[in-house]
């Protein structure tokens, strides 16, 4: 009995949480994620209840708007009013996604698919600049932590500020010298040094040292003011900044082998690659990218689109491009070879993934693509054929590659017919014997 059982029961009632990642890759909306953060919708089991039609109910929001302005995402909705109470600062909304970074994604995928990719360290890095989390007392001016400096100054002011004028007057009381004044201040937790009294006292002309008959007479005439009073009265108009509070933000210094990876994603964008085939490529390539990004310290991605010609594109456009042209896969490998000269194999782990519907002239596959694949050093070459089961095919590119590279572990050919195949394709591509 207890929450642990409740959690187990939820996993049964709401399906096992560990299925989530597989389902997400196969059927989920990948578009809410980006390369830094993977967002997986949280599975919620909802019990029905009588409620208003949300479209009919409308709502209330806050902000500078005009009538007719569209309202995004129903702002200002006041949660679900659950029975729990008193959680200041526990923000509503934003809880429809479970967010993971690529490292966590890679770890989860390892668990879920039984993968075990050990990234190889390649380049020896003398100095790696880590996050700017350290603070040091010296550094370049541009790295000075101004907030820290100011806040320390402000705190010091709040704690140590004292009413100078009053204390100076105190020294003008009959029978009060620096010693007595210091004792008086100390008793009242006023943080002023004895030195200050000595110096101030020295600066008071002898004939002004007995202006007040007693401390009571002084306080009656002029009570000392607290720092808060003085702030309110505008008497503190500057915060003294001190050199000792200067801190420079500083990166951590690390020496290590850096695990670099460059991933070349090649995609056939020719006329025969219809929406479904494109989606299957995206569902396979995107998790591969996230996974490798999570596994390596430094991941670079090259995106190449091709029909009969090949050209390099950005990640954003890569999965959306459609072109009308024919197909010549070798054009993409020629471009890949050129791009990879910037990433020498001695320093970089290299992955070359290509995807299409296998439609390519057999001569191009045999005479040009295969020699190029052999020539391009890489940890792994993969070709992914995406073709819905009901689609007819004439293409033999995948089959030819499979025949030719049958003995070689560093070339994988995989087939994806529908969403259900996506995770097994990923597993096949990343299986230990091919990539370790």
């Amino acid at each position, binding site marked *: *009995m207890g929450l*642990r059982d*409740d*959690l*187990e*029961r*939820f996993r049964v*009632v709401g399906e096992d*949480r560990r299925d989530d990642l597989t389902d997400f890759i196969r059927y989920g909306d990948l578009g809410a994620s980006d390369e830094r953060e993977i967002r997986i919708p949280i599975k919620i*089991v909802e*019990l*029905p*209840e*009588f*409620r*208003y*039609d*949300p479209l009919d*109910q*409308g*709502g*209330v*929001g*806050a*902000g*500078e*708007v*005009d*009538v007719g*302005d*569209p*309202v995004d995402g*129903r*702002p*200002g*909705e*006041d949660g679900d*009013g659950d*029975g*729990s*109470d*008193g*959680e*200041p*600062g*526990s923000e509503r909304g*934003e*809880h429809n996604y*479970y*967010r*993971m970074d690529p490292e966590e994604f890679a770890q989860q995928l390892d668990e879920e698919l039984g993968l075990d990719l050990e990234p190889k360290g390649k380049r020896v890095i003398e100095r790696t600049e880590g996050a700017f989390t350290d603070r040091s007392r010296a550094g370049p001016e541009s790295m000075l932590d101004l907030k820290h400096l100011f*806040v320390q100054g402000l*705190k010091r002011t*709040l704690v140590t500020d004292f009413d100078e004028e009053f204390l100076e007057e105190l020294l003008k009381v009959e029978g009060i010298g620096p010693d007595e004044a210091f004792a008086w201040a100390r008793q*009242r937790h006023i943080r002023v040094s004895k030195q200050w009294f000595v110096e101030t006292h020295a600066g008071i002309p002898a004939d002004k040292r007995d202006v007040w008959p007693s401390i009571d007479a002084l*306080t009656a005439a002029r*009570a*000392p003011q*607290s720092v*808060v009073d003085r702030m309110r009265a505008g008497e503190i108009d500057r915060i003294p900044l001190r050199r000792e509070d200067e801190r420079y933000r500083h990166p951590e210094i690390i020496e290590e082998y850096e695990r670099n990876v460059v991933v070349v994603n090649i995609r056939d964008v020719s006329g025969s690659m219809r929406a479904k085939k494109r989606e299957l490529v995206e569902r396979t390539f995107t998790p591969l990218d996230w996974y490798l990004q999570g596994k390596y310290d430094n991941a670079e991605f090259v995106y190449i689109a091709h029909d009969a010609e090949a050209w390099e594109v950005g990640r954003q456009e890569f999965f959306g491009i459609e072109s009308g042209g024919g197909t010549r896969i070798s054009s993409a490998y020629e471009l890949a070879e050129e791009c990879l000269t910037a990433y020498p194999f001695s320093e970089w782990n290299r992955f070359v993934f290509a995807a299409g519907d296998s439609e390519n002239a057999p001569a191009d596959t045999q005479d040009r693509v295969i020699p190029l694949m052999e020539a391009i050093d890489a940890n792994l070459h993969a070709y992914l054929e995406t073709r819905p089961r009901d689609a007819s095919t004439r293409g033999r590119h995948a089959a030819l590659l499979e025949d030719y590279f049958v003995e070689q572990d560093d070339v994988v050919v995989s087939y994806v017919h529908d969403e259900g195949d996506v995770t097994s394709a990923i597993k096949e591509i990343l299986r230990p014997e091919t990539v370790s």
Partner: protein
Amino acid sequence: MTHEPLPHLIAAELDAPVQHATELATRLGLDPYPVNFWIVDYDEMNQLIAYEGFQKRYPHWRWGMQYDQRSKMDRFHAGKAFEIVNNDNPASAFLQESNTLADQKAVITHVMAHADFFKQNEWFETIDPEDPGAAAMMASHADRIHSFMDDPDRDREEVERWIDHILCLTDTIDQHGGMSDARTETPSESDDRSDQRALADRLSDLGVRDEVRDAVFEDRWTEEGPEPPEVDTPQADVLAYLRDHGKQFDEETGRATEMEDWQREVIDILRAEAYYFAPQRMTKVMNEGWSAYWESVMMADEGFANPDEILDYADHLAEVLASPGLNPYALGKYLWEYVENTVNRREVLEQLLRVDGITWRTLPRIVDFDDVLAALDPPEPLERVGSNTVDDLRTVDPVYVDESALERAIDGNIDVDRYPWKVLTYEGLARRNYSLTKPRFRGFLARVEDAELERLDRYLTDGDRYDDIEDALSAVTFTAGWDRMREIRRSHNDITFLDAFLTREFIEDRSYFAYEFDHASGQFRVSSTDYDAVRQKLLLQFTNFGKPRISVQDGNYENRNELLLGHHYNGISLDIAAARDTLERIFQLWGRPVNLHTVVKTVEGEDLAALESGDRRINPEERAISIRYDGETFDMKPLAWEDVESFVDTELGYDTTPDDW
């Protein structure tokens, strides 16, 4: 994750803040339940949140889901929970151990005000004070349900499924009337009737607008002396009705059979918990606002935060108040400040109107508000209490000063630099924290409108007259704001609170707006920034937990032992798909066919084409329908309007769609 008895008693460094906060709260006029404070770690906090503030709940997968969601919300994106407190005597408050000391102090003061609210607000009195206490109740419910699951005749799944059915109905209770243990056939005659009259009196005392009263509360409470109904319907407490008259559906025989004892007991248990949580849900804005208000008085104004903590506290406060939209903390706090200012302003103006020669017409001309504020400013020694100036307190009105504390302070036995409030009385603290002279509210007095002045003048009771303004101001009661706030905190709930104090000025200052779905463009769009529309929309969100009201209309519908439920349609239609899913669950608790009468909006013919093309505004037609579920199929058919007339009101104005959409 652990499920051992969790918390560690509060750390020694917080002992003193707790003691001081209790003393300060008492001096400020609060009267909280005693509070036990506990320190919990991140995971324990997630468990407590999943269990809605308790350490032990009955077994159910839903807690696991809540825990799972809470844990998956990563620590960076979802704001952290600083504390959770439950309504109990003594209350228990759980503080997150990662809080800074400034956070902890803020949270302690915040919790003190919650504990005061729980104890003092009358809507919480529906909970029987003789009960053994909330934590004990939850624990005993847990043990009972666990024992049902342990019974070899059934398994956990079966009990959980039964719980699921009931959970679909925990909002269809009679939250304003409170939980009555009487069986529903015999609506207890004398008790109920006097309760109903008391409630009618209460609503009329609160000055609730008639249309709000009619929309929110059952007629039977607001009529002067209703006859006890001859039959036991209509019945707002659907759960109680099902407990008393429901049957379970036996899948094997396909017939209704009597519920087993454990099944009825589970209904009772879940119903009791629903009634326990109802007052908190009915007072969320008031309660959070109340706590935010007093937290800020204690932390910032009375120096509960040390000078070096005040920056951390400012950060904390900004985080709590800054979340966008309808944040109950911000909304509630601003409303309480508004209440305080208006009451204080009225008190000052009423005194001024008693000065010979001053009328509501001449007052703005004769009176210099800056001079008034200067006179109202707290006397110097009261404002600047400190070890150097403590003697000066002898010069102020003795009513402000706690004489014996002052002696001790002068002898050095009280650290008045850190705890200046220890030498002041309630009156002294009220004077020191007087709202109208605070820098950010200094313009409030002068902003009074002629209409308000005229009203004050008209209802001015006979009393002292003054020769001059000085005399009048010396008669001002500085505790008026706080006194009134405590009265309001005693008698109001969110609906009456918002209805009474959500002013035009407030809605405009805060830039609130109403929005509606625009079928032509297929999205939500701003429908109005007008005060009445926004207020109406806001009240909809707080009425009946923001859910449609459903009641039992008949337990022997058409003489076939069928259940008839009525939807008290208020212009906003039901989510029909969800309603059908709910009827399937109710069937399991009734055992025989169930019917729901409701109103839908339909668009036909030319209007349909206009809707699709978005050419012009269409007015959907409201039609009464019946939905019947017999255990296998749904049957929807039109009804005559007369069939629903008795529980439907189409004049409530919750729809803020502009005419030209």
